[in-house]
Every structure is written in C-alpha cells, then in structure tokens.
C-alpha cells in the first residue's frame, strides 16, 4: 500500500515538472543576440588584458578588435531580421504539451506494470535473520548459524552442529571446513572424524579418496565401533575393486549391528550392490536401470564383471560417436578408475580433453575431476 502511495506521489511530482512550465507565463526571454553581445563584450576586455600582457602584438590586437566589432554589427542586423511570429504554431504546441503531460503517467505506469514486482517487499538479510526461527526455512537457519559463526569463529560447538546440516544439504566443501574447525577447536572425536571423512568423500563425488580414508581410520582408532567409518572403509575397498574384502567387512558389520540399527539397511543394500559399487550408484542419471542391477546381483561374479565391462564399453562406444558429452566422459573416467583400470581411465581422460580442446573450461574440469580421483592426465 505504502508503495502505491509513494509511486503516486512520484508520478505527481514528475507530471508537475512538465505541467508547471507549460502553464507558467511566457517570460520575456532575451534573444540569443543579447547573449552573444555579452560574450563579445567580454572578449574585447580580455583582448585588452592580453595586449597589456604582451600576449598579442598591438597591430594584431587592433585587427582582432575590428573583427569582434564586425561581429557585433552583424549581430544587430540579424536581430532585427529574426523577429517572427509564433502565433500560428500554437495549435501544434498545445498538442505537444497535452501529449507530454499525458505521457508521464501513461508510460511509467504502463511500463512498470509489465516489468515491476510491486507486491514483493524488500528483504534485507538482517531482517530475514531476525525473525522467529520457527518461521524460517532451513536455508535461513543455516545462514543465521553462519552469521553467528562469522562473528564467533571459535565456537566449536556451533561448527559441530552446522557440519551435519551441510552434509545433508550436500554442501560438502562447507561441511569439510566445518568438521575441520570443530576438530581444531573441540578436539578429535570419532564422530567428527567420521563426519569429515563422509564430507571429503561427498566432495569427491562419492569416491572414498585417500584423505577420506585417513579420516575414517582416525575415527576407528578413537572408537573401533564407529559404524560410519567401518561402512565407508568397506566402500573404499569395493571401489578399489577388492570386492571380496569389502563383502567380508560388510558381513562382519552385519554380525555386530543391533537389529534396529539404521546402518543395517545401508549395509544390506551395499552388499546387494557390491558387484557394481560406484558405476551403479553415482551414475543414476544414465546408469543401469533397476532391472539390470537386479540381474547383476543374481549373477555369478564372473558374469557380473562381464556385464559391468559391457556397460562401460558401450558407454565408451557411445562417446566415440557422440563425443561432446562432458557428463558422459566423467562417468566413463570414474568407471575405469573404480574398475581399477587406470590406463584406460587415463586414456579416456586424454580423449575427453582432446574433444573439448586443451585450454577449454571442460578440460580444466576434467583434470580437476581426475585429480580428485587420484589420476593425472600425463604419464
């Protein structure tokens, strides 16, 4: 409401700026000749000053004075000839005046109604953060916590609360930083180390890298019963292609887990999929469908491996025919890494970079991605 009042006042002001001069009396304005004369007068006096200072020779000064005088004479005659009547033009003038006065509100309100968002109030961040937490979205709560931590960066408890929220929001690099801060400020604990490991793995697209493994191992050292750490370390084995060891580890976990543990489901699922660890789970978009996974889990290990190899090979073939698919290349590189075929992974990376050109953004993305998997482009 307030907005419409202010908008109306602004429009009124703008319209008055047009209206008032049009309605005002025609002051007897001076003709341009008067202005010119004023300037010439000044030029003459300046000429005198310059001559006195020797900036112009006396003969030239006299000549210049005559030039200016001639201009003044010309001015007088032009002035007398230039008086014309403006009567007959007054109809046109009135038409233009009316249009101008109407144009201001019409153009402004017409245009604004098309492009404006009059119902959307301003939302300064401080106001949004000050309102009742119960009304806030998760994003806003996180932002509030961030603002608090920006002001008190040594609040370890704050970092610890925020870190798992980041994990759930998939803001993995923020989660890594938050866990590191919590560990730095409040000391080591199995939960924090395991969380850090999960965050590092999340940041690498689900690959349990060496850094992540370090964190999980640290967690296990503090608490041998930490289920998250054990689960992910088994996952790391699976990703390295050491399926049997992974399955043994998971089965050992199942044996110790209480019947109502939330990890039970995760482990069972992982066991079910253990033939196709990463290729299947992270390539959801274009990976094998559920039926294929079912088929894979009921096959013999040899058949399963053959099937995975076939799928990867078909992806490889697809990319040969249709190479401008950055997502596809990354999936292929990761598949080769997970299958333990480093040479082929490197070869795929090389081809991917060649497709997009060595200096391109994609190429940089590929190199960074490969580095996160522990792979370098050049041998």
């Amino acid at each position, binding site marked *: 409401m307030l907005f419409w009042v202010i908008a109306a006042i602004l429009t009124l002001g703008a319209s008055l700026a047009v209206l008032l001069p049009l309605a005002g009396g025609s002051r007897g304005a001076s003709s341009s000749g008067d202005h010119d004369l004023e300037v010439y007068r000044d030029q003459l006096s*300046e000429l005198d000053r310059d001559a006195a200072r020797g900036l112009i020779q006396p003969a030239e000064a006299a000549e210049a004075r005559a030039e200016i005088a001639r201009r003044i004479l010309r001015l007088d005659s032009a002035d007398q000839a230039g008086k*014309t009547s403006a009567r007959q033009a007054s109809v046109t003038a009135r038409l233009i005046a009316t249009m101008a006065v109407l144009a201001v509100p019409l153009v402004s309100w017409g*245009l604004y109604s098309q492009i404006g*968002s*009059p119902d959307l109030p301003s939302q300064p961040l401080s106001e949004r953060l000050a309102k009742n937490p119960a009304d806030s979205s998760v994003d*806003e709560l996180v932002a509030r916590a961030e603002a608090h931590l920006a002001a008190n960066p040594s609040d370890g408890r704050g970092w610890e609360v925020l870190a798992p929220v980041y994990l759930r929001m998939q803001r993995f690099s923020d989660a890594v930083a938050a866990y590191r801060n919590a560990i730095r400020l409040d000391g080591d604990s199995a939960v924090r180390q395991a969380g850090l490991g999960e965050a590092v793995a999340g940041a690498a697209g689900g690959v349990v890298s060496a850094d992540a493994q370090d964190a999980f191992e640290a967690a296990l050292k503090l608490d041998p019963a930490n289920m998250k750490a054990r689960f992910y370390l088994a996952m790391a084995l699976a990703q390295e292609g050491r399926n049997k060891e992974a399955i043994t580890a998971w089965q050992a976990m199942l044996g110790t887990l209480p019947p109502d543990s939330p990890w039970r489901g995760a482990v069972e699922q992982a066991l079910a999929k253990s033939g196709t660890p990463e290729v299947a789970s992270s390539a959801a978009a274009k990976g094998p469908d559920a039926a294929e996974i079912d088929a894979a889990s009921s096959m013999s290990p040899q058949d399963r491996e053959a099937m995975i190899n076939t799928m990867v090979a078909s992806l490889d073939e697809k990319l040969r025919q249709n190479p401008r698919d950055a997502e596809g290349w990354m999936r292929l590189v990761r598949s080769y890494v997970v299958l333990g075929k480093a040479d082929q992974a490197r070869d795929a990376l090389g081809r991917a970079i060649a497709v997009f050109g060595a200096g391109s953004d994609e190429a940089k993305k590929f190199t960074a991605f490969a580095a996160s998997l522990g792979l370098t482009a050049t041998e």
Partner: protein
Amino acid sequence: MVEIGHFALVLAFALSLVQTIVPLFGARLNNQRLMAVGGPVAVTGFALTALSFVALAGAYANSDFSVANVWENSHSLQPLIYKITGTWGNHEGSMLLWVLILTFFGALVAAFGSNLPATLRANVLAVQGTIGAAFFLFILATSNPFIRLNPAPIEGRDLNPVLQDLGLAIHPPLLYLGYVGFSICFSFSVAALIEGRIDASWARWVRPWTLVAWMFLTGGIAMGSYWAYYELGWGGFWFWDPVENASFMPWLAGTALLHSAIVMEKRSALKIWTLLLAILTFSLSLLGTFLVRSGVLTSVHAFATDPTRGVFILCILTLFIGGSLALFALRASRLTAGGLFHPISREGALVLNNLFLTTATATVLVGTLYPLALEALTGDKISVGAPFFDLTFGPLMLPLLVLVPFGPLLAWKRGDVIAASQRLMAAFALALAAMLVTGLFIDGASVFAALGIGLAVWLVTGALTDLAIKSGVGSVAPAVMVRRFAGLPRSVFGTALAHLGLGLTLLGIVATLSFGTEKILTMRAGETVELSGHTLRFVGLYPAQGPNYSEDRGRFDLIGVSGSPVGEISSAKRFYPVRQMTTTESGIKTLGLSQLYISLGDEGKDGSVVVRLWWKPLVALIWGGGLTMMAGAAMSLMDRRLRVGAPSRRRKQAVAPAGLP
C-alpha cells in the same frame, strides 16, 4: 524501497522522452513555454535517477538477495564498503551509474544554463534527453538491475574478488564522469548543428565542460592504471589492453577538443574542428562503453551467441555517431568561419596539435578494433600489443611532445618561432644536459633512455619557462615579477601545470622502463635478497583470515645500511572460497618517488615461495603526473573568463556602444 527505485527508474525514462521531444519542438516553433519544460524535467529526471540508484545501493548495503543483481554480485560477509561499491562493480549497476551521471550533467545545464540563449539551451537539453532515453531503454530492456527473485536466496555469489578493492571502487565513477562529461560537449555540438549556427556563448560553455570531463577522465585513467599496477600483481602500469584503449581514445580526442575549444572561445576560430572533435570524442566514449559492456572483448563468439545487449548498444552507437555525423555533413557548411590567423601562430600550433592527436587516436582505434574485426571475419585470434603501438603511436607522439613547449609561447594570430625558440634556450640546454648525463653516467647503452629523459626534462622546463616568461623573469624587477606572477590568469597556470604533468608522467614511464630491475627467485624464511641496492629479508609466510577470504601473507623486512630492519613490506595470496578464486595482493614500499614491488608466486612443498621483486625508479611520477594534469584542469576551471553573466537589458543599452571601436 527496492520497488520504489525500480518505479523511479521507469518514471525517469518517461521524463527523458518528454525531455527529448518537448524542448526540441519548442525551439523549432520558438515557443517559450515548450522550451521552458526542458529545465525542470531534466532536474526532476536526475532526482528520480538518483533515488533509483540510492535504492539499489541500499539493497546492496542490506544484502537484499531478493534482488537478482545483488544476489549475483554480493555476499553478506563482504565489508560494507565493498558491498556498496559492488553496486557499480557489475554491468547493470554500472549502467545505472552511467545514466545517473548523464542526468546529473543534464540537470547542471538546466540549473546553471540561464545565461544561455533559450533555443540553444532547449536543444542541448533535448539532445541530452535523447541520450538518456536511449540508455534508460537499454537498462530497462536488457540490463535491469531491479529484477527480483522470489523466494529470495539466503546467500549471494560474491563480488569478483579482483574488484574488492578501493582503487576499483573509485575508478569507474571517475571514468564515467569523464566519458559522460563529453556528452555535454556532444549535445552542444548537435544543438549547434540543429540550429545551423554557433552562438558566441557556445564556446564559453563547451570549454569548461570539456575541462571537467577531461579532468575526470584523466583521473579515471590514472586510477585504472594504478589499480592494474598493484592489483594484478604484474607490476605493469599500461598494457595496451582493449579496455584501457577504450578509455584512452576519448582522452586523446578530448585533449584535442580541449585545445580546439580554447581557440574557439578566445578567437572564434576552428569552429568546424571543435564541433567535429566534440562529436568524435563522445562517439569514442560510447564506443568505449560498447567495447567494455557488450562482452565483445572477452569473446567475439560469446558476443555472437548472446547478442541482445551488444546489438542494442550497437544500435545506440549507430544512431548517435551516424546521426550526428550525418547532421554534421549537412550543416557544417552553413557555419560561418571565425577569426583569421597566420599558419605560424598559437592557433596554427593548436591545429597542428589537433592533427597529431587525431591521427594518434586513429592508430589506437585501428590497433584496438583490428583484432576484433579479424576474429569476426576469419576466426583467427591475434593480439595487438605493445610492439604495434610502440611503432605507430610512439613516433606520432614524439614530434608532438617536442613541439608542446612552443605552443603557449607563440602569440595569437601571428607568432614568431625564432623569438619563442630564444625564450626556450634555457629549457633546451637543461634537456640536453639531462640527455648527456643519462647517456654518459647512468645508462650509455640505451638511446631510448637518454632521449626519453631529455624529452621529459624539456617538457617540464618548457612549462616552467612559460610561467617565467609571462611573469617577466629577467626583464622586470623582482617585486613586479611576483605581482605579475600572482596576477596571471588561472588558465595560464592550468596550461603550465597540464604540460608539466605530461612531462612528469613521461619521466616516470621512461625511468621505470629503462632503469627498473626485476628478480624472480625461490625464497625460504630468513633468506635475504638484494635488488638495486636494497636488501630484503623474507620473514616468513603467515596464514590469516579476512572477512570473506583466507590468505597467506608473506612478510619482508627492508634492511637498512646498519643491518637492522627499517621497514616492512607484505604481500599476500588470498583465496575467496565463494568464487573459488585466488588473488595476489602485491606489497609495495614507496621510497621517495620510487617503489619496491613484491608479488608472491606459488608455494613449494618445502616451505619455499616463489617471489617476484621489482625495483621501479620514479614510478610514482606516472600517476603524480596525472594528478598534476588534473590540478591544471581544475586551475583552468577557476579562470574568471568562465564567469560570464546573463545579459540584462539595461546594461546592454549602456555598454554596447562602448564596445565598438
């Protein structure tokens, strides 16, 4: 508040349409009332644009991420100062700043234009309104900073870290004050062409506007150059980069315009030159805006795939440049010639100056546009850099710089070169001595150094000679001399200061390029290095946390003769997590007019760091010269000539006969 700003912007656009049409018809129909509309509308338009700008700046200051522009270019953790300067650190906001300055200058003409003939004032405001309308439309149609997001994101994407710097906060407003200041000269020229005549008061108005615009543009370029010097971490002060050229071309043309306007004001000569230069200068300002804002520089192909903005600016460019030049071709012949002069005279010297400067502008234009044209036509990417400009721009500037000190010493209408040369003997002797000293004692191998230093000294002493001669050194008693010196018109000081500043800048450039030294090495904490007689010890690398970045700060101690530290320099590598970008903060220690410059490179695994060191002798003069030029322009602005009153009827009766010989 945000939507009020948006509405004010739309309203300002509507007013700019009125300002375009009504005064123009008023001048045609000679209708006082229609003409009178221009003034109040221009002032109101400025007030509304200012309101709109304040609304946007407020949204930035309050981190209102419901505004898309704020979300894209701000972050809640940024320091307040960079939140606010972020308003013009992006395309949309900077265009809003552009029209804000445009309407500000329009309002100034309206407010102080009472001593202008009514039709001229109306036409000027109409042309100014046209430019405003075109840019308002551009903003509203393609670059609206008030687009909203609903629901609003909770955090922004941060301002480009390179722009989070005070130098860059001041640079664009200065540059725009310069660019847009020339729009007034342009409007005056087009108004004169529309009327088909040039009033005597025309030049009185154009010169101060040119001065103001030129002063700000000089400051903007100097600031931009200093920013590039310390922020980009390469220690270079001028790269012949298209973005720099885009601001340099209007400066060159504007310098010619400035000199031409002086002749026109004093002697009513060079009318055609002045008109054409005013049109060209503003055209080059528009071209600069186009080059920087359309994205055509980053990639011709990116421009071709998303051409909305670029094509729009191209249309504006065609409309204003093409339209004004066509008008010029139609009407220029109707303008009466002004005062006469001999080839050897102050006027003649200034014509020569104009020729040199416009040719130099043309070479820079070719060097800037040729690579773009080539890429568009053939797809080949080439870069035209320093070698091209050294070969073309350099030789053009050399004779001009040699001739600069003669100009102010030549008399109007008919000058005497021999007399002027005699007066410059002392300056010439000093310049020669400087060349000899440079060649014999400092650096015998470099002809460039000797010539450059000599030329710089020639410019500086030449400018001082001008002041000395005009206050009568050597010919009158000291007391008279002091009185004369104090009584000199401010514009004489302005000329001398501007030419002096040019000499200082040249001195700084030549000294830095010829005598500067550089070292790149790997250092560990505790190691020392010597560079051009200065010993530096690397104290170590310390991590630190900024409001929205983390940094590794390398500290260096400057070791004095006694072996104890006499000063500290620190350079840092900053990491901005939101944009995942790293920037280098160079460490600079100013010693007199020279500087030690340190920039950190990559960190080795064993705690060593790559360090780049430069010794830059007299480098501060490069920008000091720019400041001196600005001071000259400010001095000239205070000249009494600029205070011509409005005519009053009674005075006219009394004075007119007295003015006749």
